[in-house]
């Protein structure tokens, strides 16, 4: 800024001096005099007055010209002295008031000052020397005065009472003041132009401009203060930096102050702050400020050098380095030894300012591998620098401790969001006297945070600046990252290193390093985001190329998917649109032992890279299992394997029962599974399928091992197991006689009864597994009921027959019994397939495999089941028998204890009764058998007719009402039942005696006896009528 003066100032100056002498005597009257003078010219007066004063003070007033320089100095010093100064000030004060009154006239100097006192102060200093240098003695003299004047005024302002708002307002420019004009000039020559203008004014004082201003931050323009545009143009004329054509723009009064107001934005470049380079090869690189030279606007920063040593070496040797390459060397620490190896001269020099030693190469200074570079403040950006962890890590050299971190903190703090601290946050003081004091935030007010210190004996709350505090976490705290790269992740604090936390992520179980500042305490558990669109973490998804996989990680805009490729884990990153759909269908698979695997089953991997891993199945798709093993750290714990290389934990190797581990349901599933998934089992004869299932695997004639009956010949009716098949002959081991006989293949029949539906069920093959145990057989039968009528009881069927046997003390007799009545029940018509009744009947034969039953009856049934193995055959007919026993089995009890009438159909019981003579006696009372017609007699009720459906353990029966048994089913006590006496030609059932359970036709009645023709054998028997019951016509 340059100040111009009207030339008359100078001209009049001499006159003034003369006057001065005169006036000296009357110094006391200075003020009055001044006023007088001012009448003529404000400015002159003023200056003169001051001069007078000076002279007095200095006491050597002889010749101004002689004293010029030295006096000035003295004067200045004196000026600053208190008492005189105040004196003077008081006087000036009055002047000023008047001055202001008269401002309007022409006192531009005051005016300028008045408008911008502070600014003037700042701006003037640098220019003062120039002015002095360029001016001659007289000028010096004048400048002196000027200086006085100004200092006086400014000091007045400074020391005076505080300027009130109103006073400040008064200082603002008004319409009466000279205006500010904006003039375009050559770019980069703003200062120069301003100085030129100033000089021009000095050379040609007739110019009517008052000041010229160049602002550092404004390019291409300078401001000129003048009353009229013409004055500005006049002044600018001929200046080479100002274009003639340049338009002169008026600055609105309101904006005038803004033009010259000092921007309060102070770039706070302190040491140790992080900055980023704006230019050159280091553009964007993080740097740390090591020194700031505010005067020269230079900063020394520490950088990780990007130096191509080879290139450097070449350059130093004077070889042609070639053109500047596009290639930017990666940042790397400078290694002196390496450089020396490349014959680069490394000097060790001491820095003049800091006294530190630097390695110097090609004018570049290095220390500890860092490059120290002095750059202009403009070439770095210091605003909102958020160094990433990696960058900071690089800057960390071994030996750096938390102090180094503290430095980065300072930068971090700048970037804090508003509301960073919340009430209750645990904080630690990181700066100041109370460093390391911990406490809790009580209150936040703008920048000040009140904390409740942890330490006792301190005031209740202490206020700190936000920047002095840092959040504090303890190991074990569960936190959530709220900003930064890891935003959204949660985890537990494992370690606290200064303001850096090491967190163990909840999901990945990996360490994450975060700034304490970026973290809040939280009980939430996430990996960050867990879903994009419809897809969520751990979903099974179908991908574009028909492959599939499990989402193991959700990233910002993509998923990491563990693909369904066994053998090796294959992870791909897929975008949302690459996912076709979510696979939600629940499917099953078979493990190595053909156990059924469904989701949530726990399986163990038997082979492959993940051998030995174990965990619940999360997804199944196309025979591929996705297992979640919490010990597996990769892929979010997911393992992808073929179902075939796993085994269900708790499953048997050959068997699909999973003891205990599974719910009833899964058990059921298991039981059912063989149907679906034992392709291995070759379908045999329609009847013979079941039973021998696994044995078929031996590769023999399917007949081998089967239980058959001999249909004709001398051994007709015998049963046995096929040992060998040779052509048309079959060697059969008779069950009853412990000898092996050879029979014609055509003479044997599969033991199975043609009641196919049962057979289907019986396929379970369980029993067949252990042919040794006759007891097994009953198993099958159990199943049957499950299928059709009983529904629930099924499970029991599955249970080990052994148990049944053990628990049912009666079962052994069965065998005997069978022995005892070989043919008898074979004859019973109930055998007809499809009759539900038949089932119960078939039942009694459980032991028959053993029993020496002559097979006749069976053959009658007309089924030639060539393939059925011993057991198979044994099984089928007896299916029903077991149900009878079942109720006794403890296991069954445990399973379906509650089922009313569940399995009760006690054919077994009956059979047993019959078998054991002892029980036989009781048989009388226990006449109720399934399928017979009964009258229900309840007190106060009309007797209903009904058909017994089942007889339960506890002696009650389920009876279907109606003569056909097609009405509702009720449960009644046996005591309430009465058999319906059969009439001639009725189909009957024998309810007691040796033939109990057999059916036949009542062909005649003789008194108390009935003549019965048994269905099975066509034998005619005479039985007591009381032991006969009418069968329901079904």
């Amino acid at each position, binding site marked *: 800024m340059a100040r111009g003066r009207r030339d008359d100032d100078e001209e009049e100056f001499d006159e003034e001096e003369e006057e001065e002498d005169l006036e000296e005597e009357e110094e006391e009257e200075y003020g009055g005099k001044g006023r007088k003078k001012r009448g003529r010219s404000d400015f002159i007066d003023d200056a003169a007055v001051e001069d007078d004063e000076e002279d007095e003070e200095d006491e050597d007033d002889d010749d101004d010209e002689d004293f010029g320089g030295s006096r000035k100095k003295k004067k200045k010093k004196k000026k600053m002295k208190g008492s005189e100064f105040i004196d003077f000030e008081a006087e000036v004060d009055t002047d000023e008031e008047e001055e202001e009154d008269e401002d309007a006239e022409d006192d531009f100097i005051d005016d300028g000052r008045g408008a911008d006192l502070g600014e003037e102060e700042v701006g003037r200093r640098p220019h003062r020397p120039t002015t002095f240098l360029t001016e001659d003695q007289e000028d010096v003299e004048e400048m002196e005065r000027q200086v006085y004047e100004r200092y006086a005024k400014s000091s007045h302002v400074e020391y005076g009472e505080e300027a009130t708002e109103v006073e400040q307002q008064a200082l603002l420019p008004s319409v009466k003041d000279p205006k500010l004009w904006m003039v375009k000039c050559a770019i980069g020559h703003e200062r120069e132009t301003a100085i030129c203008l100033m000089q021009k004014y000095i050379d040609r004082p007739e110019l009517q401009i008052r000041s010229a201003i160049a602002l550092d931050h404004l390019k291409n323009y300078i401001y000129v203060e003048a009353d009229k545009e013409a004055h500005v143009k006049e002044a600018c004329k001929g200046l080479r930096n100002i274009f003639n054509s340049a338009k002169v723009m008026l600055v609105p009064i309101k904006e005038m102050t803004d033009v010259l107001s000092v921007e309060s934005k102070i770039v706070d470049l302190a040491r140790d702050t992080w900055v980023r380079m704006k230019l050159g090869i280091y553009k964007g690189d993080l740097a740390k400020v090591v020194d700031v030279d505010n005067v020269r606007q230079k900063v020394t920063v520490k950088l990780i050098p990007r130096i191509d040593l080879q290139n450097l070496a070449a350059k130093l040797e004077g070889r042609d380095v070639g053109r500047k390459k596009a290639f930017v060397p990666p940042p790397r620490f400078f290694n002196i030894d390496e450089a020396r190896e490349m014959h680069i001269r490394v000097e060790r020099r001491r820095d003049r300012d800091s006294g530190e030693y630097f390695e110097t190469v090609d004018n570049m200074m290095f220390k500890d591998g860092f490059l120290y570079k002095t750059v202009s403040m403009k070439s770095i950006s210091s605003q909102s620098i958020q160094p990433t962890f990696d960058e900071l890590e690089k800057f960390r050299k071994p030996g750096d401790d938390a102090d180094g971190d503290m430095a980065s903190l300072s930068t971090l703090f700048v970037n804090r969001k508003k509301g960073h601290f919340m009430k209750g946050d645990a904080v630690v003081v990181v700066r100041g006297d109370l460093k390391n004091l911990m406490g809790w935030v009580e209150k936040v007010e703008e920048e000040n945070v009140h904390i409740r210190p942890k330490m006792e004996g301190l005031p209740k709350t202490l206020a700190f600046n936000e920047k002095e505090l840092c959040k504090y976490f303890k190991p074990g705290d569960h936190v959530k990252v709220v900003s930064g790269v890891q935003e959204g992740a949660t985890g537990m604090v494992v*370690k606290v290193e200064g303001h850096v936390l090491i967190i*163990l992520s909840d999901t990945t179980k990996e360490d994450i390093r975060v700034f304490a500042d970026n973290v809040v305490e939280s009980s939430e558990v996430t990996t960050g985001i867990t879903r994009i669109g419809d897809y969520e973490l751990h979903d099974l998804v179908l991908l574009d190329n028909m492959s599939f996989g499990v989402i193991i990680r959700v990233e910002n805009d993509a998923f990491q998917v563990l693909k369904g490729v066994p053998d090796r884990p294959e992870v791909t990153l897929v975008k949302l649109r690459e996912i076709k759909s979510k696979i939600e269908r629940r499917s099953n698979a078979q493990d190595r032992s053909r156990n059924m695997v469904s989701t949530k089953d726990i399986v163990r991997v038997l082979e492959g890279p993940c051998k030995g891993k174990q965990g619940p199945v999360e997804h199944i798709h196309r025979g591929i299992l996705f297992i979640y093993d919490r010990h597996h750290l990769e892929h979010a714990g997911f393992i992808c394997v073929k179902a075939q290389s796993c085994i269900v934990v708790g499953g048997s190797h050959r068997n699909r029962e999973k003891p205990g581990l599974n719910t009833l349901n899964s058990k059921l599933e298991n039981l059912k599974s063989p149907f679906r998934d034992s392709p291995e089992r070759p379908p045999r004869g329609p009847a013979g399928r079941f039973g021998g299932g696994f044995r078929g695997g031996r590769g023999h004639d399917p007949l081998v091992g089967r239980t058959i009956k001999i249909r004709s010949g001398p051994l007709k009716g015998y049963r046995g197991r096929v040992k060998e098949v040779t052509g048309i002959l079959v060697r059969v081991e008779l069950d009853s006689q412990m000898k092996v006989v050879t029979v014609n293949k055509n003479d044997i029949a599969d033991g199975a009864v043609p009641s196919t539906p049962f057979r289907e069920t019986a396929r379970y093959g369980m029993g067949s597994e252990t042919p040794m145990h006759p007891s097994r057989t009953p198993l099958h039968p159990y199943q049957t009921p499950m299928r059709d009528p009983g529904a629930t009881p099924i499970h029991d069927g599955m249970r080990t027959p052994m148990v049944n046997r053990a628990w049912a003390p009666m079962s052994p007799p069965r065998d005997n019994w069978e022995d005892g009545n070989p043919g008898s029940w074979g004859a019973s018509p109930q055998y007809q397939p499809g009759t539900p009744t038949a089932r119960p009947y078939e039942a009694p034969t459980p032991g028959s495999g053993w029993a020496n039953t002559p097979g006749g009856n069976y053959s009658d049934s007309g089924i030639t089941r060539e393939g059925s193995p011993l057991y198979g055959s044994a099984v089928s007919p007896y299916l029903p028998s077991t149900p009878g026993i079942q109720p006794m089995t403890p296991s069954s*009890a445990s399973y*379906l204890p509650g089922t*009313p009438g569940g399995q009760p159909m006690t054919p077994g019981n009956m059979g047993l009764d019959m078998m054991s003579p002892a029980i036989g006696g009781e048989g009388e009372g226990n006449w109720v058998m399934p399928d017979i017609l009964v009258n229900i007699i309840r007190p106060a009720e009309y007797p209903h007719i009904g058909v017994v459906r089942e007889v339960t353990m506890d002696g009650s029966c389920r009876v279907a009402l109606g003569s056909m048994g097609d009405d509702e089913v009720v449960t009644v006590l046996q005591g309430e039942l009465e058999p319906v006496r059969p009439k001639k030609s009725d189909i009957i059932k024998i309810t007691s005696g040796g033939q109990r359970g057999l059916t036949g036709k009542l062909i005649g009645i003789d008194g108390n006896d009935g003549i019965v023709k048994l269905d099975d054998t066509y034998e005619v028997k005479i039985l007591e009528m009381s032991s006969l019951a009418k069968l329901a016509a079904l």
Partner: protein
Amino acid sequence: MFFHIQLERNMQLHPRHFGPHLRDKLVAKLMKDVEGTCSGRHGFVVAITGVDDIGKGLIREGTGFVTFPVKYQCVVFRPFKGEILEAVVTMVNKMGFFAEAGPVQIFVSNHLIPDDMEFQSGDVPNYTTSDGSVKIQKECEVRLKIIGTRVDATEIFCIGTIKDDFLGVTSDPGAAA
């Protein structure tokens, strides 16, 4: 820490279980349902020690299931911050090791392993002191202090430290072998 407490639960029972053994069924189901589960408040239910009271069953409309309020005594295990536990190391990796104390899984980060112990990879990854006198590997028993717990719906996960006095390996079956 183990606690013996009384808890209550509403059990739903399928109608097929109605019968003379209803109570047994209910208890069996209760055990199946409850033992081994984990709740944030009580921790893991280790075992049911007794059934105090079975309230009146309430038939649910529509399903036929019956809801019984059951009060039972059980032993629960809940780890606490600061608790010292003995646990068996189940896995060792470079980030630390996992150990199990019953149903609770505890992770000990390498930051919480004494500084003189270093991770040794190889067949049997382990942490070993520089002089080789102490080794942490799979199957080791360690005494550790829990410094943090995280409670999920189905498990409690803890972070432990052995960087403290009297913590560390207590027995090492692997070393003996």
